[in-house]
């Protein structure tokens, strides 16, 4: 459970990037885009983020039934905190 706040922070970190890049994309495309196109780029942005986050997220949620798994999960958490600067 110690890793739960890290999951939240990592999600927020990725979402900020996703929204910023999506906004840039939409402003390049102009106002005349169809709903279908709008939906497709939104799905694209979510698909990339979700699939990239899947591995790290999963490795923050090992159930810790044996101590080695718990240690590894905490190491993963520390590494993610460092690499994404999540500890602020």
């Amino acid at each position: 459970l110690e890793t739960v706040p890290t999951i939240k922070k990592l999600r927020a970190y990725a979402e900020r990037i996703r929204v910023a890049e999506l906004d840039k994309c939409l402003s390049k495309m102009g106002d005349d885009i169809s709903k279908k196109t709008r939906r497709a780029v939104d799905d694209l942005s979510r698909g990339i983020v979700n699939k990239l986050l899947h591995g790290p997220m999963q490795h923050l949620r090992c159930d810790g039934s044996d101590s080695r798994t718990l240690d590894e999960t905490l190491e993963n958490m520390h590494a993610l905190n460092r690499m994404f600067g999540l500890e602020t």
Partner: protein
Amino acid sequence: PKKEELLSRLKTGKNFLRNQDLEKAFTEFKAALELAQNVKDPIEEKKAARGLGASLQRQGKYREAIKYHSMVLQISEREGEYSGSTEAYGAIADCYTELGDLERAARFYDKYISRLESD
């Protein structure tokens, strides 16, 4: 015309949300939710519910936010159409994290994580 008003409410709601004008955003999404239920448009209904959840969440009203994020899941179940569910599980878990209920947060994050690889 109702459909048009619905779409325009969603759009202004989103803009208010983006500008952190959270109470105004709430009002727009609330109107949009009623319109969507009126015209029976479940996709837009989910967007309105999600907007309501987001507006409340950013105001720190986590319990109320959970109510609306859960509504997204209920609509998905009712319609058998699951767009927005991954995000809803994640948002509910975020709210429980803020409330300090890490047990429950973990359960919702597990649902969120199990859906990350699907579309």
